[in-house]
């Protein structure tokens, strides 16, 4: 009798351990996922929009950070288990930070489109920039710049900053750069905007025959500097976020602004710790 009770207890314990994991194909959650703060939508709003999709994710919820470096530290200390941003930035982080690996996201992939942000009364300038971007896509200039200032930099190259041409008497556009999105937007050791941002803007300015002034702003102050006229163009804004996820529609573009043609489309990508259990968890397993 005693043995029977013991067997029954052991069976109940084994079932209680196994059943929750098997119930209705529920996915094991490992922790939170970090993202850079959006311009408009808040952390709670995004999690609300994505709540049905996140059921299938191995992460609990999205947590916003204002700086890439804050997010890297959160990842390193285990506050988040995944750092999610564009593939270029994730590869840059993985190439510079010991112990961080990059991998594809667990759920079906999305692309981030990068555009420049302008005030809605600057339609003409927006159209001219968009036309220049389309032209640069067509003649291969954009791809050359991407190779030189993104791919080569991720591999360890350290190119010089591109100095925009001077057009005496021409109008000057003030471009806000954050320095917080390497290798796309970062600041050199000599405190100069350096890399893809300067190269792309310098090329656009050359084609439009305008002068450029770079203004270094905090990532979270981009919207304010644009709306108050401190700058004319914000170098980067993410659009098309989660477009492959049905039902994940939200508006992140600030009021009274317009965006240019996108100059880059990059997959959303994950940075994880090399010794994290998340590193080898794939959906088809």
């Amino acid at each position, binding site marked *: 009798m005693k043995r029977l009770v013991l067997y029954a207890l052991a069976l109940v314990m084994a079932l209680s351990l196994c059943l929750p994991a098997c119930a209705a194909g529920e996915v094991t959650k490992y922790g939170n996922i970090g993202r850079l703060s959006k311009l408009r939508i808040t952390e709670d709003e995004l999690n609300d929009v994505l709540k049905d999709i996140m059921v299938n994710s191995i992460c609990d919820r999205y947590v916003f950070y204002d*700086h*890439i*470096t*804050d997010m*890297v*530290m959160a990842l*390193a200390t285990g506050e988040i288990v995944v750092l999610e941003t564009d593939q270029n930035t994730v590869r*840059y*982080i993985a190439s*510079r*930070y*010991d112990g961080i690996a990059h991998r594809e996201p667990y759920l079906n992939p999305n692309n981030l489109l990068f555009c420049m942000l302008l005030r809605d009364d600057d339609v003409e300038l927006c159209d001219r920039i968009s036309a220049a971007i389309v032209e640069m896509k067509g003649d291969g200039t954009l791809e050359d710049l991407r190779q030189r200032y993104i791919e080569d930099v991720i591999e360890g190259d*350290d190119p010089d900053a591109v100095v925009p041409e001077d057009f005496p008497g021409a109008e000057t556009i003030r471009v*806000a750069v954050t*320095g*917080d*999105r*390497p290798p796309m937007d*970062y*600041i*050199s*050791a*000599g*405190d100069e905007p350096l890399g893809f941002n300067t190269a792309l803007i310098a090329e656009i300015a050359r084609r439009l025959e305008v002068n450029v002034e770079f*203004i*270094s*702003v*905090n990532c979270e*102050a981009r919207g*304010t*500097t644009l709306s*108050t*006229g*401190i700058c004319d163009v914000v170098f980067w804004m993410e659009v098309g976020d989660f477009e492959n996820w049905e039902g994940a529609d939200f508006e992140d573009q600030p009021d009274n602004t317009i965006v240019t043609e996108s100059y880059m489309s990059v997959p959303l990508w994950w940075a994880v710790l090399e010794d994290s259990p998340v590193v080898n968890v794939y959906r088809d397993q």
Partner: protein
Amino acid sequence: MSLSDKLYKILIKGDSWKTILNGLLVTVQISAMALVLGTILGALICLLRTRKNLLARGISSVYIAIMRGTPVLMLLLLLYYGVLARAGIKKEMVAVITFGLNVSAHVAELLRSALEAADKGQAEAARTLGFSAWKTFRLITLPQVFRIAKPVYQSTIVNLIQWTSVVGYITITDLTRVINNTASRTMQPLLTIIIGMLIYLALSYIVFGLFALSDKIRMRKRGAAV
């Protein structure tokens, strides 16, 4: 990557030490100018605050309450993006005005409390001995006020240096912003932030050191006089 490699990347490569020094210089300049402005303004506010005139006292009390009760970052954003946006004032000057206004409220209160703590009997004795009101204030009350206010004043200076770390919000590249940019570029946030903290700490201890030095000089002079 070894620690020395990381330090080389953060501090040496591409003359980044020059950029860090420039950021430090901006922090020191803004702090020093704001301190001068804040001290002068604070003394004037204190003067109003200690008047018998109700209006003067009321205005100065409200000013102090607003400046001490609101975050300095909010004031900075309000002045830069709002009130002074079209005034054509340089962003560094907006920062000096902002921190000067904020510090003035703290200085006004610390001067008032020092004035109240000063020994009134000595002032009365001086007046009885025939000193004029101004002479009594200058020779008897003021030295006591300085002595009483000094420890709090040095803390205010150190706080001011730390408060200026938010000027990156108005596109100024100060020490904090340089540290952030360096952390992003090198992807060594922990080490870079520790270096930034050590620089701020050194700056604070220079301030404490200067005050300690002035105390020593004063004591030596007093000793020589005795």
